[in-house]
């Protein structure tokens, strides 16, 4: 199957390893991945902050770039939620029937990464090996907008060597919330402190999620607290293979702890 990757603006810029891991996993499963270089951003930050006109033009760009793509894989639950929940409303706002049609055609072709694997490709065992204790954070958008809760659990349970431990109070927001993390930094950090407390309770080495935005926030707090726990996008765990685990540790993305990185062959 030809799968078009929407990497998302912040993964592209800050978390390229996540994108590489998505490519590895999908190709290992025998699929072809394309990357349409004209892509940028879904418009979520602008939309959620009230900058509707900017979000509109980003949606138009997205529609142009992914025109004709049959399956679009997005390794970010909140960006998928933006498209699924809000693009139809933006289209209504624009009031152009052609745009509305394009959005209607787009929405069913968009998949969050773990959703694509489990629901569309019907795979739970991607042949991964990752000998670590992992807990799973469920981003609010995955939980409440996409109803993607079980998919990552099933994928992680099938990873050899991986011990999955339940995260207490896993339905509570980590406090990221986009610009909320800056505009209400004190509350955001207080929420993060609760989340980190729950993560430490699990004694896991790794906190995984389907969204690097929550993880950037949680990981930032963990490091500031000198914690040994690290955050990792689920794709990077699923990309891990026996004998290969940690191979790119030295040259891998800065800030990812060596040895815990999923990586694998390209």
């Amino acid at each position, binding site marked *: 199957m030809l799968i078009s990757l929407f990497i998302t603006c912040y993964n592209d810029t800050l978390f*390229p390893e996540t994108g*590489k891991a998505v490519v590895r996993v999908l190709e290992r499963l025998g699929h072809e991945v394309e990357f349409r270089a004209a892509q940028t*951003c879904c418009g979520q930050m602008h939309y959620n902050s*009230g*900058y509707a006109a900017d979000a509109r033009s980003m949606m138009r760009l997205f529609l142009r770039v992914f025109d004709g793509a049959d399956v679009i894989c997005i390794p970010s639950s909140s960006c998928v939620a933006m498209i699924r929940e809000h693009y139809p409303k933006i289209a209504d706002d624009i009031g152009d029937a052609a745009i509305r049609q394009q959005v209607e055609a787009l929405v069913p072709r968009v998949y969050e990464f773990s959703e694509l694997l489990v629901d569309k490709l019907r795979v739970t065992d991607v042949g991964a090996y990752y000998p670590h204790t992992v807990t799973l954070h469920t981003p*609010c958008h995955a939980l*409440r*907008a996409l109803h993607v809760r079980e998919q990552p659990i099933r994928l992680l349970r099938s990873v050899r060597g991986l011990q999955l431990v339940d995260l207490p109070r896993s339905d509570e927001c980590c406090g990221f919330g986009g610009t909320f993390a800056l*505009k209400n930094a004190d509350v955001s950090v207080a929420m993060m402190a609760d989340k980190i407390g729950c993560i430490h309770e699990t004694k896991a080495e790794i906190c995984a999620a389907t969204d690097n935005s929550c993880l950037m926030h949680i990981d930032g707090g963990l490091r500031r607290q000198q914690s040994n726990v690290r955050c990792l996008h689920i794709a990077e765990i699923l990309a891990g293979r026996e004998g290969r685990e940690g191979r790119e540790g030295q040259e891998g*993305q800065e800030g990812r702890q060596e040895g815990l990185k999923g990586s694998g062959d390209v």
Partner: protein
Amino acid sequence: MIRVGDAARAPEFPDAARRALGNAQLRRNVRHATEVIRNKRAAVVGEMADWQALRDAAHEIKDHVLTYLAVYLEQFEENCTRAGGQVHWARDADEANAIVIDIVRRHSEREIIKVKTMTSDETRLNAALEAAGIAPYETDLADLIIQLGHDQPSHIVVPALHKNRTEIRELFQRTMKLETLGPDPQDLTGAARTFLREKFLRVNVGFSGANFAIADTGSVCVVESEGNGRMCVTLPEILITLVGVEKIIPSFLDLEVFLQVLPRSATGERMNPYNSIWTGVRRGDGPQEFHVVLLDNGRTNVLADEKSRETLDCIRCGACLNACPVYRQTGGHAYGSIYSGPIGAILTPQLQSLEHSTSLPYASSLCGACYEVCPVKINIPDILIHLRRKIVEEKGAPLGERMAMKAAAFALNGSSRLSIAQTLARIAQRPFEHDGRLTNLPGPLAAWTVARDLPAVPAESFREWWKREREG
């Protein structure tokens, strides 16, 4: 004047929240109380097979009312009047307070006993009564605690949720002159009972809010847990009820839906211990004079915006407060309004036409927990976004934010621009980078790095890797 308590003078949410976060006792109290109610609610909602259908029904009834509000209000007035009630219309808080004061004065009374009502906190009725030489006595236990402590309600349903038992005991010991008062719940409620009973028997004017005003019968409905409300609406000679215009429901039959969803959502009870419904006056039984004050106070402003009018669907159950991770950290006072939590964050600014309280729509991570528990399905996250948009487009966001958003929009408007922005970020971050982390950034990003590291922009973006690896 349209007024929502003291909201117009309240500090911005981030500042008030910072203060609240420094109060460890307050946070423990709020966390414990919200947790208890949340769990009770989850248990009694979980046993309802048709919960989602009930939510849909409640939403549809409320939306229908908002579409035909004028029709139902007039129908209510007609039926209430026919049953012997007197209906007054108040455009704003001051008009409502003046109507109430006028009624009390006409009877030469100097005291009133009150059932818990958020709406009278909204109009600041107690202050207006006191200024007019009339003493209001709150009879709901929590409201009594607030009144005795010259405090503000911090929760829609549980106004004294921020106080624990020890603090309440100290307050009662001091204000009721009961130095030897014990610490048990029975001791505290016993003290309140003794304090209040004498007032129930003496005071001639009762005052209540309304959970529902029923158009087809002209009845008013109040639900409560303590029985104080039942006394206030039955014992006095004169009864005054203040009702926000959005509290209208078309038919008595609609209570079937609301008396299921409200108690389960509000207090985690299957049914409220006291459900009082009364219609006009009956000779020789209960109050012999009954007034209803229908209050607008900004509600028609909310109604005017189709995209956010469902805010008025709210039945004040407080479930969104208990579910909200922001409320759980800060408690209600940080919202600067008697309506706190997620519903307060959308209701307070709208009632005041976005003239005040414009930091409230940002007091949310948009996690959606509020929408999930709302028994009338108000899409609070969507309305928060809508209000942010109105603030940006009509009121103007802060300059720094506007510039940052403009710059981001420019950079994201094409892939070559994004590549350039990524390169610029790599250069700009150099003075701040240590081991691939940014730990001490200037300007607005300092809010991030004060307690969190930020990953540095790595040497190669994904798109650069793809180009090199796959197309090079």
